């Protein structure tokens, strides 16, 4: 009887280990009596099996974790690749819009001047008729200005593959990005801006624009969809402890304290399935770190989340102005104008000829031919992207025949849309006049260039 009880007990222990293994609990062990019998052998075997399985399962789980991490990293790369593709597409579209917009701006300037000239020759009753035309021209010029602002904003946003950090004003980047993102925010909340001047920071316009846009979109998605007039997304810039700070706050439900450490992890999202990739804030965090900055989340006075991006200031340096200073002084400069868009050459040539002596070239090849015979120019205005021989080839020809003229070589461009173009601009940092530009901007630039002496050849 005692033997039967002992047998039942030992079988029961062995059964417990088997059940534990079935539950994937590999830490339970059967007692080994040291009786050296078959039951002891089974107990020893089971214990060894449990240990073996425990190690195997642990390494398999580790492999699965590594595999999942790899898949996430791959998805992130794909996502980044898609963003880059969207950026390239936007950049290409902006370029295509900018060329006709440049012609339109030049044509409108010519029409306006003609109206002004005509006005002096008309009777007062006839001038009223002309007045309507002049108003229409002014409206059209304002429309071109809007196109210019829009394509400029798109270019800023699309500069995703240019990673160079340059001195910039954070408040200006925030202003541009808010204009771009406003259509996404306004259907859900009022967008309130309070942009105070901040210290100059070393940054990448495109990347910081992405930070602002992602935070704005995140804030807009955080507020309830109902009653947009009752919801607020507030964006501000200010200086704190000598640093430039961007703050984005919303009137949504906020981020619970226990999730604040996790929201910057890739693929972490509190949004419903399909509403977010969980990449937005992790990209923001990565970009901010790459700028040697910090990002913090807290509760906003408005009840929702409050994100503070803080970037270190750089010693005061001259930040390139967003538009050249205007000038009204007389100009008489010899200008080589190079563009493969015949309309641009014709219209700009006509406008420039009032105050400059213009030599026109309708292609890069033609420009190089001219430069090999004659390089007595004060300024060269050259399109960057042209069919066959492009602006870079012309720049290199000038480097060969009249290197001192490079100081007065200006690329007019609707955007660097090729890798070659972007690499060249990054490497050489030449003077650029973004298309479309106003004629007064062009004269202002020419005036500035010819006022500084050329270096001796």
């Amino acid at each position, binding site marked *: 009887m005692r033997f039967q009880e002992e047998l039942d007990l030992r079988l029961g222990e062995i059964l417990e280990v088997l059940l534990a293994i079935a539950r994937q609990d590999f830490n339970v062990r059967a007692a*080994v009596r*040291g009786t*050296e*019998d*078959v039951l*002891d*052998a*089974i107990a*020893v*075997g089971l*214990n*060894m099996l449990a*240990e*073996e399985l425990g*190690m195997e399962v642990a390494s398999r789980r580790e492999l699965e974790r590594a595999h999942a991490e790899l898949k996430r990293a791959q998805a992130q790369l794909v996502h980044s690749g898609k963003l880059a593709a969207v950026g390239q597409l936007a950049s290409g579209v902006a370029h295509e819009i900018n060329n006709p917009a440049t012609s339109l701006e030049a044509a409108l300037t010519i029409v306006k001047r003609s109206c002004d000239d005509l006005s002096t020759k008309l009777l007062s009753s006839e001038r009223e008729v002309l007045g309507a035309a002049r108003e229409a021209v002014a409206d059209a010029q304002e429309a071109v200005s809007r196109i210019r602002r829009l394509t400029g904003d798109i270019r800023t946003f699309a500069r995703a593959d240019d990673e160079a950090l340059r001195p910039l004003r954070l408040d200006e980047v925030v202003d541009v990005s808010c204009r771009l993102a406003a259509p996404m925010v306004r259907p859900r909340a009022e967008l309130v801006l309070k942009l105070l001047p901040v210290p100059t920071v070393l940054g990448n316009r495109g990347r910081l624009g992405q930070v602002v846009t992602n935070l704005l979109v995140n804030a807009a998605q955080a507020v309830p969809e109902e009653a947009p007039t009752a919801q607020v997304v507030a964006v501000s810039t200010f200086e704190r402890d000598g640093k430039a700070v961007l703050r984005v706050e919303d009137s949504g439900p906020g981020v619970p304290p226990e999730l604040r450490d996790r929201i910057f992890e890739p693929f972490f999202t509190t949004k419903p399935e399909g509403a977010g990739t969980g990449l937005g804030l992790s990209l923001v965090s990565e970009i901010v770190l790459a700028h040697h900055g910090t990002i913090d989340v807290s509760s906003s006075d408005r009840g929702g989340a409050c994100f503070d991006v803080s970037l270190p200031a750089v010693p005061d340096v001259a930040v390139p102005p967003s538009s050249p200073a205007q000038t009204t002084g007389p100009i008489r400069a010899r200008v080589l104008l190079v563009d493969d868009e015949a309309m641009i050459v014709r219209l700009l040539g006509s406008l420039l000829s009032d105050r400059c002596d213009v030599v026109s070239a309708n292609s890069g090849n033609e420009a190089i031919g001219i430069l090999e015979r004659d390089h007595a120019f004060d300024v060269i205005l050259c399109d960057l992207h042209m069919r066959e021989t492009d602006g870079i080839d012309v720049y290199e020809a000038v480097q060969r025949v009249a290197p001192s003229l490079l100081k007065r070589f200006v690329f007019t461009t609707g955007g660097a849309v090729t890798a070659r173009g972007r690499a060249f601009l990054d490497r050489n940092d030449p003077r650029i006049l973004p298309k479309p530009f106003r004629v007064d901007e062009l004269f202002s630039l020419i005036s500035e260039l010819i006022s500084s002496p050329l270096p001796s050849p």
Partner: protein
Amino acid sequence: MAETRTKICSFMLDERGFVHARLDAGATMEESDAREAIDATFRVAGEKRLPVLVDLRLLAGESRAARMYFVSDEAVARYSACALLVASPVSRVIGTFFLRLSEHKVPTRMFSNEAEATKWLVDLPK
């Protein structure tokens, strides 16, 4: 004849050219014991790489880490072959786990007869 012992095992150099390792009754082999055992084997062998007869007839258990160490490159650099001597059902289970669940880089076999195990070790090509 050189002899030594560790916490759970005694070692003796057999004049026929192999090390005889005998595990204590009721002992359980952990990784630290396995390391000591390999060191002792090599020492008894006069720091030569000799075959080893492991008598595990009284062994009560062996951890996975110990088993993995015995087949590691570090360990097999110190012995050239292994004959496992088993008798009880428990030692047979331990021996079978060792033999079947590990990848062996030196000749390894299990025996229930000591004379056969010895003959196999002695007959191995030198």
